[in-house]
C-alpha cells in the first residue's frame, strides 16, 4: 500500500517539490552548450584577428549573431541552474537562502539581457 496521496502521485514532484524539471533543464542546456560552445571556440579560431573591426564584423554576421544570442541565453540559463544548486547546498538559513536564490535569478537574467542587447546593437548597426 502506498502512503502517497493521489494528488502527490499526479504532481510527481517528490521530496524536492519541483520534480525533474531542474535536472532535465540542466541536461538539455548542457547538450545544447556542447554545440554552441564548440561553435564559439571554433569561430574565434577562424577570425583573422581579435581587433575591433574583425570582431564586430563577425558578431554582426547573421549566422554568428543568431548563434551568439542562443549561446548567451543558454549559457545564462545553465549557469543560473548550476549556481542555484550551489546556493541550495551551502547557504544556511531559509531567508538568506531564498534571497540568494532570487538574486541569482535576477543577476542571470541581467547577464542574458545585457548580452542580447550588446549583440543586437552590433548586428543591427547602432552606429557601432
Amino acid at each position, binding site marked *: 500500500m502506498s502512503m502517497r496521496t493521489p494528488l502527490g502521485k499526479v504532481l510527481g514532484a517528490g521530496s524536492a517539490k519541483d520534480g525533474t524539471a531542474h535536472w532535465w533543464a540542466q*541536461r538539455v542546456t*548542457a*547538450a545544447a552548450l*556542447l554545440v554552441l*560552445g564548440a561553435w564559439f*571556440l571554433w569561430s*574565434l*579560431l577562424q577570425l583573422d584577428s*581579435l581587433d*575591433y573591426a574583425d*570582431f*564586430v564584423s563577425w*558578431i554582426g554576421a547573421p549566422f554568428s549573431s543568431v548563434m*551568439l544570442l542562443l549561446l*548567451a541565453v543558454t*549559457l*545564462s540559463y545553465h*549557469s543560473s541552474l*548550476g*549556481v542555484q544548486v*550551489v546556493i541550495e547546498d551551502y547557504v544556511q538559513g531559509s531567508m538568506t537562502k531564498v534571497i540568494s536564490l532570487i538574486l541569482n535569478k535576477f543577476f542571470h537574467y541581467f*547577464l542574458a539581457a*545585457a*548580452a542580447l*542587447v*550588446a*549583440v543586437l*546593437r*552590433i548586428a543591427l548597426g*547602432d552606429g*557601432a
Partner: protein
Amino acid sequence: MNNAGRPLSPHLTVYRWPITMTLSILHRMSGVALSAGLIVLVLWLDSAARGANSYRDFTDLMQSALGRLLLVAWSFAFFFHLANGVRHLVWDAGYGFEKHQARVSAWFVIIATILLTAAYWLAL
C-alpha cells in the same frame, strides 16, 4: 530550529580520497568559475557594442599578465567542465557506473582537458 551542536555522522573525511571525488568537486568548482567567466564574456560583447575605444580598453585589460592567466584558467575550466559534463551525460544515459569504469573515465577526462586546452591555445 537550532541544530548547531548536534553530532554529525562521519562524512567525506573518513574515506581515502579517490580520483572520482576530486573530479566531482572540480566539476562544481569549474562551474562556478565559468559563471564568473560568463560575466567577463558579457563585458567583452558589451565593450564591442560601445565602440572601438572601450573595446580596446577591454582587450588591453585581458592581454595583461593577470588577464591572460585568467583566460587560460577559464579555458581549462571550460574544457574540464565540458569533458566531465559528457561523462555525467553518459552516466545519465545509464552507462559507466562500475567503480573501475568511473576511475578510467576520470583519467580520460583529465587527459582530454589538458590536451584540449593545450591544443586550443596552440591553434589560436
